[in-house]
């Protein structure tokens, strides 16, 4: 149903449009701090076009933005994949950054390793991962030090 009304012509990020879901993919540039967040803004626009309710859109935008910024600040960029089903939206953020040594610690509100120059821009409150957990129905972090991190989030519609 979704895919039928939302095709590649509507949105260049659509990489495949199968029977039951639409996939959007983005390369997140780790060098360009000022454009950080653009993929999330595009996803928000697409979800709006597809007619999702504001609450669902907000949950997806907030959690994807936090994850996107984390990939830029902590991991040199990566790849974002958003699969949109009728009843849920699945966001996968994968990077080849340094990994997270202690995931429980990283999840704690207020914990941050952001450097001073990043903090002066208003980041580094240590609230990104807690926000992601709060705004999604499911969240999984897989991380290996020296290899990278993959965050999978599910927002139910």
């Amino acid at each position, binding site marked *: 149903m979704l895919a039928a009304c939302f095709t590649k012509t509507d949105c260049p990020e659509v990489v495949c449009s199968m029977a039951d879901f639409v996939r959007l993919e983005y390369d997140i540039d780790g060098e360009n*701090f*000022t454009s*950080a*967040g*653009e993929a*999330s*803004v595009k996803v*928000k626009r697409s979800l709006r076009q597809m007619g999702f309710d*504001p609450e669902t859109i*907000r949950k997806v*935008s*907030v959690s994807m*933005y*936090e994850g996107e*910024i984390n990939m830029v600040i902590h991991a040199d960029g990566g790849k974002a994949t958003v699969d949109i089903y009728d009843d849920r939206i699945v966001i996968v953020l994968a990077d080849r950054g340094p990994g997270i040594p202690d995931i429980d610690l990283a999840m704690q509100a207020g914990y941050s390793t952001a450097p001073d120059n990043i903090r002066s*821009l*208003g*980041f*580094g*409150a*240590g*609230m*990104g991962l*807690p*926000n992601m957990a*709060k*705004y999604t129905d499911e969240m999984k972090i897989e991380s290996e030090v020296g290899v990278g991190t993959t965050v999978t989030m599910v927002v139910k519609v």
Partner: protein
Amino acid sequence: MTVKELAETLDLKPLAEPDTEREAKGCYAGDLLSWVMGRASADEVWVTIMTNLNIVAVATLADVSCVIVAEEAEIAADVVAKALEKGVNLYTSPLSTYALCAKLSTLV
């Protein structure tokens, strides 16, 4: 009230006004972006002293009705251009965050 009425009432200096007929409801003040992302609600007025480009993405995603930069902090041209492009109403004011919020409390 609308963003336009609010701007006139508070004598805000307009930097980008792409969508001033929007209704402003409530207010959130803060400079740490993840707090703002997590706590600001749609249609609120966001008061901050942050001026870097990332405030535009945060304002878009949190869906605030406008951003007021307090203390007349200087804002670069690329931030203004981005705000226009993304449809974010952006203002400055010489007032402090506290003074702005005190006035906003009776308005929105």
